[in-house]
């Protein structure tokens, strides 16, 4: 499907190639970063000490993954401050699934959200394992290594939550609310650029193909727990199934702007103009 065997290093990319690589990296990095920000809100608030540590650990993993992807954007001359702390919040291209706030005490939400997200994450990483962009391909294995835990964690919890009447009801309510937002994980940032990402072999599966594989994974599993998945019987996804705000196309809910305010607050409060580096570059590790 790809006409290009291997793209060159960051400094030798043609402008249209670079735009495709950057768009893909922003999608990946923004999803991971924003989701980690949200997960962190559960710290010291999860139902038990153990569940608290497990979710915090997953949040740390996702932050680590975001760092790996943002670091590849730094290859193109971007600095951390421009990528996060001073970036226009209207340019973030994460899915709305990761930006929605949690209801206080609604433990079903992070579990359902994590399940929907991590299954998608697993598939999209598989589609990068043979990426034509060597810098990306090199890092996928590292990230996949931590994803197994995330999926097992979400799956185990879901099975247990759905096994009691009250739990089942809560999971169903959450699923109805989150599922349309999960579909936006497979929406294009810009259809033309996404087509180029596929054409250049940067990603070896199209968003549509990934979305279909994802549905084939999550729908049977959720149904096996006695849950109803809010989707047409033939599995076809239409614009009507999507939420009003997609996220991917850089349109976001108000909640995102509040979250952005919150996580950039200290940076501005301290009058910073660059990000403090506390870890060595991923390339030197």
């Amino acid at each position, binding site marked *: 499907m790809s006409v290009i065997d291997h793209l060159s290093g960051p400094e030798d990319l043609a402008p249209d190639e670079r735009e495709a690589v950057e768009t893909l990296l922003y999608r990946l990095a923004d999803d991971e970063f924003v989701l980690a920000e949200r997960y962190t809100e559960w710290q010291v608030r999860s139902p038990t000490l*153990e569940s608290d540590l497990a979710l915090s650990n997953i949040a740390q993993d996702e932050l680590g993954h975001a760092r790996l992807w943002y670091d590849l954007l730094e290859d193109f001359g971007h600095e951390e401050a421009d990528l996060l702390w001073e970036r226009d919040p209207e340019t973030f291209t994460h899915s709305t699934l990761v930006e929605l706030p949690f209801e206080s005490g609604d433990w079903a939400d992070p579990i359902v959200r994590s399940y929907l997200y991590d299954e998608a994450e697993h598939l999209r990483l598989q589609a990068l394992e043979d990426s034509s962009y060597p810098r990306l391909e090199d890092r996928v294995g590292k990230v996949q290594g931590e994803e197994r835990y995330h999926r097992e964690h979400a799956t*185990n919890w879901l099975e247990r939550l759905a096994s009691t009447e009250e739990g089942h009801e809560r999971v169903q309510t959450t699923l109805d609310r989150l599922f349309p937002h999960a579909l936006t994980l497979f929406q294009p940032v810009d259809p033309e650029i996404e087509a180029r990402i596929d054409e250049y072999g940067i990603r070896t599966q199209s968003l549509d193909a990934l979305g279909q594989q994802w549905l084939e994974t999550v729908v049977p599993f959720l149904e096996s727990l006695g849950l109803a998945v809010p989707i047409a019987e033939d599995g076809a996804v239409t614009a009507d199934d999507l939420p009003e705000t997609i996220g991917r196309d850089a349109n976001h809910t108000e909640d995102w702007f509040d979250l952005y305010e919150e996580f950039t607050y200290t940076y501005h409060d301290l009058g910073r103009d660059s990000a403090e580096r506390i870890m060595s570059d991923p390339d030197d590790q």
Partner: protein
Amino acid sequence: MIWEVFRQEKPGGYHTHCGNVHAPDAEMAKLFAEVQHGRRKPTNSLWVVPQPEIAEVDAEDTTFGGTTDKSYRWAMTYTGVDASFAEEVAESQREQETADREREEVTAGGNS
């Protein structure tokens, strides 16, 4: 329910008790133990054991080692052993082997 956690650092090593986790069942206990006890230190394997399944006998129940003097059990003779002792053992071994051979030669000569 409480699960006691035992960590093994390297293959073949002992699983050593390292703490516990609260979990409803073994699957969740393993999942939680992985994060709490398997991430910060080198880990090859973890055991999770339901706490009520652990049987204990302690110093209140028994007198470990008994109450009479059994110091004869302590093999103190060997505490000062060093390399020179190994040489002594090897020397003695050689002497016995030589003696053995000589005995065989004498016996063989007697039969012919």
